[in-house]
């Protein structure tokens, strides 16, 4: 081959390569076939159908539609017909379907032995539980975190039959029951946010984690149409520009746990300007408020400037349908005082029966279960503290739909209570911190797998009732615990009057006057009936419990449902939503503003140790002006020691820092105003 031939061949080969489709075809084929491995998950090829469900993991009780393919739940869509969902899908509701196959699910009943958990059958589990309950008569306790379900009636009837004690997890529902009881009424508090033209949130994170937050957010959306003028003003008062404050028309900086004092400060200004209420105890209320709560005093106590307080009072008085919603910034630990003070303020504004209503509680259908108020009467925190310290005996401690070993103040002491109780039973669907410490785990089926119901969550606009039926086959060997406990009651020789939980739900629908057929189809029942009971204002002006501990900074725990709730750890499908301002690597992040950081001698990015009355934690500092001066904000939801790879060992649990203070007058302990010290770690 001479030089000319070689060049001709080379040029020909180059041109040929440029023209031939072979390399491109090979590249194309390579990309196709290398995506065709048999281990690549394949999607199903079946039709989708949708069925209604009310989310039980979302505390706001939003109704959604579940997409089902071949008996498996594959997705979630909004349900515009549900009064608490209004077509939206919350983070927890969106993640609930994905949790059906969470690695943390407990797949069958388990009994703790010397060497760890061993799997047992449901028959064995029921036999063991029945035996333990028989032995422990009178020394049985149960804790439930289900604020909306009729399953509580079965559990309470069984526990009452054994002369045991029944506790509900603390939260806004318990605060509401206690507030109404102290004011001489009972039922559930409903907020008609739909028709309010001025809404003041005192602490309550009502667009994210408080009350019927999904419905509230939908109403916010309707009153704040894109591209048009807002038809209502929303104001948030709290220490952190949280998910509610960030979209409200105004954020007022107020210290953690300030809701009651701010409400009473506003009440005083309104009464000085002639406001009154046709209610029992008004004179006493007026006198008590007049003796304290001057704007200057409120400013000192809460950080809310006196001129801002005056302006808000004027705006409230000028509004046609004002509404004040008060609570803890993180949904628990406010006791009853904030709510009582805000009810007093709403009454001064003439809104009782208008923006604020009392709707009847769910009618009891299981004999021996007692009333709702009775179930909410006892405070679980001092009980568990007593168990942890060995002062109180619990031969059998049962936990349903709650994770007290993680989601309560002094979380480490609460976890000890699970160990100290002679025999702990967890009904959790997940291997959470409580289940991990339990002697017996009897896993509950999840919402989409079981019959269940949902009656009027705290803050709904009116009485609502939804029934869930099994929409998909159970992913694991789990059962509906309400049914299991009916069976256990029967084994104990108790007749609760029902053979199955489904029958209880049918009876409930009859008692409410709702159509079972319609409920079973997933349609929500609503009722406009309200209670005409007159509230006694005299108790509303009692001073709030002061800050707990003497630290240099006020602690503001922050709840965001994409990080989970006090019961549920961060769901797998939300794991990617964590921001660097919440978590750095696997280290927790706390937020404070630049001034607070300077005052505390810490810098952005530094690792610090926070010491609170309940315990301590380390975290990195993120400087953000979303937190008021003198406050450190810590996200709740991290620091799980159980669950799965999505949440276990990620960050630290800020619940550890908190400790509860007694409030003997209301009977509910308070932990919404803790203080912490901070130092470079």
């Amino acid at each position, binding site marked *: 081959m001479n030089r000319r031939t070689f060049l001709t061949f080379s040029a020909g080969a180059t041109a040929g390569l440029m023209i031939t489709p072979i390399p491109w075809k090979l590249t*194309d084929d390579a*990309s196709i076939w290398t*995506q065709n491995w048999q281990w*690549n*998950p*394949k*999607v199903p*090829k*079946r039709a989708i159908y949708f069925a209604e469900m009310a989310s039980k993991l979302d505390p706001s009780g939003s109704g959604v539609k579940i997409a089902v393919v071949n008996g*498996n739940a*594959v*997705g*979630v*869509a*909004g349900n515009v017909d549900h009064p608490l969902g209004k*077509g*939206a*899908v*919350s*983070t927890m509701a*969106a*993640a609930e*379907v*994905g949790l059906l*196959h*969470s*690695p943390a699910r407990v797949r069958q009943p388990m009994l703790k032995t010397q060497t760890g958990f061993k799997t047992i059958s449901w028959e064995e589990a029921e036999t063991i539980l029945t035996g333990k309950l028989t032995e422990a008569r009178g020394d049985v306790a149960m804790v439930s975190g289900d604020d909306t379900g009729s399953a509580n009636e079965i559990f309470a009837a069984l526990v009452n039959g054994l002369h045991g004690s029944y506790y509900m997890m603390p939260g806004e529902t318990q605060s509401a029951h206690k507030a109404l009881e102290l004011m001489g009424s009972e039922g559930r508090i409903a907020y008609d946010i739909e028709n309010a033209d001025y809404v003041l949130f005192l602490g309550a994170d009502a*667009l*994210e984690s408080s009350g019927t*937050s999904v419905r509230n*957010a*939908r109403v*916010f*959306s*309707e009153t*704040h149409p*894109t*591209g048009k003028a807002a038809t209502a003003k929303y104001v948030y008062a709290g220490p952190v520009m949280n*998910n*509610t404050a*960030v*979209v409200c028309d105004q954020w007022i*900086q107020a210290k953690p746990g300030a809701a009651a004092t701010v409400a009473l400060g506003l009440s005083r200004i309104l009464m000085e300007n002639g406001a009154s209420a046709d209610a029992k105890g008004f004179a006493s209320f007026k006198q008590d408020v007049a003796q304290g709560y001057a704007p200057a005093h409120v400013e000192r106590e809460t950080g809310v400037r006196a001129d801002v307080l005056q302006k808000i009072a004027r705006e409230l008085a000028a509004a046609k349908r004002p509404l004040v919603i008060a609570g803890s910034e993180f949904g628990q630990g406010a006791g009853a005082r904030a709510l009582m003070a805000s009810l007093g303020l709403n009454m001064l504004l003439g809104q009782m029966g208008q923006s604020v209503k009392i709707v009847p509680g769910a009618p009891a259908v299981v004999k021996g279960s007692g009333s709702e108020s009775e179930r909410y009467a006892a405070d679980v925190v001092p009980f568990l503290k007593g168990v942890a310290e060995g002062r109180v005996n619990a031969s059998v401690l049962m936990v349903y739909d709650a994770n007290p070993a993680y989601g309560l103040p002094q979380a480490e002491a609460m976890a000890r209570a699970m160990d100290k109780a002679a025999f702990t039973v967890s009904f959790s669907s997940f291997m959470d911190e409580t289940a991990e410490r339990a002697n017996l785990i009897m896993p509950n089926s999840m919402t989409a797998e079981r019959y269940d119901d949902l009656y009027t969550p705290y803050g709904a606009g009116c009485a609502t009732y939804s029934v869930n039926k099994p929409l998909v086959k159970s*992913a694991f060997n789990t059962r509906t615990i309400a049914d299991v406990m009916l069976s256990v009651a029967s084994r104990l020789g108790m007749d609760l009057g029902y053979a199955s939980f489904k029958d209880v739900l049918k009876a409930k629908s009859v008692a409410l006057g709702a159509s079972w057929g319609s409920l079973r189809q997933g349609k929500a029942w609503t009722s406009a009936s309200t209670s005409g009971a007159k509230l006694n204002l005299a108790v509303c002006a009692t001073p709030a419990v002061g800050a707990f501990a003497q630290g240099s900074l006020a602690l503001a725990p922050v709840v*965001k449902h*994409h990080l989970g709730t006090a019961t549920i750890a961060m*769901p*797998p*499908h*939300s*794991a*990617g939503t964590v921001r660097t301002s919440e978590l750095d*690597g*696997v280290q927790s992040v706390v937020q404070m*503003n*630049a001034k607070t950081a300077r005052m505390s001698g810490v810098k952005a990015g530094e690792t610090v140790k926070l010491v609170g009355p309940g315990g301590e934690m380390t975290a990195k500092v993120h400087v*953000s*002006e*979303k937190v008021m001066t003198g406050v450190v904000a810590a996200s709740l939801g991290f620091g799980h020691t159980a669950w799965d790879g999505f*949440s276990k060992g990620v960050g630290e649990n800020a619940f550890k820092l908190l400790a509860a203070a007694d409030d003997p007058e209301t009977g509910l302990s308070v932990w919404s105003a803790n203080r912490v010290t901070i130092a470079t770690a």
Partner: protein
Amino acid sequence: MAGFKEFNIRWSMVVDIDKCTGCGACMTACNKENNIAPQEEAKTRLESKGFPTRFKKIEWLTIYELSNGKQGGDHDTAFLPRPCMQCGLPSCVSVCPAIATDKNEEGGIVSQIYPRCFGCRYCMASCPYHARVFNWDQPIFPEGMEKQLTPNVSVRSRGVVEKCNFCHHRMMYAKDAARVAGEDPEKLADGAYMPACAEACPTGAISFGDVKNPEHAVHELIKSPNAFRLLERLGTDPQVYYVSTRDWVRKQGDNYLESEGGVAGGNNGGAHHG
């Protein structure tokens, strides 16, 4: 640069930043809807050993937190959800050697055809919005979770770029429903086609529709003087619009220099620039 095809329908998203709480419901709904494998955040971060996790994170919709940078009472915050912009002049399309991404369907959605993609990532380099993500790893679904895959979106394997496509399958469903109802599938009613994020959003911050259809709400929304698009001066002509009454938010939407004046508004009607 030659313009891309003009379409009679221009599916567009209008995000009201003043209504976004940053709750993340849109991201969670998107992950579930589009069969994005949940990632064990802690493990991924630890195992990445210095390799920036954000490059390994698979998400089609990211929420950015904005700050006006001021301290004390003057401070303000906003959240900005960022899906694929479905640009009118998509820089990703022109650089793709495999024609795996294209803008060639009525509605203007920029496609991503996974079996054609061989992972060169030119599109990622060219996208000014960081809207595209690359599968560095095989997607791993926790045991049993593969039963919960939706039939609508195939699972992407390692070595493939993926991105938001405005839940294209929902458009196909909406068109099918229109055909069954005897209606014109090219004239879907307002709200008949909604991506999962827009449907989920509790505060209704995300509006969706055809900006060329006067019967759709977004047709008017984008004419607002408060409407803007991200990095508009690049001339990519995005089909995602944002609305905020706050001047500082609009300014941050296009990297305005401190020395520059206010934001020019009202030039958002879908005209091509550049």
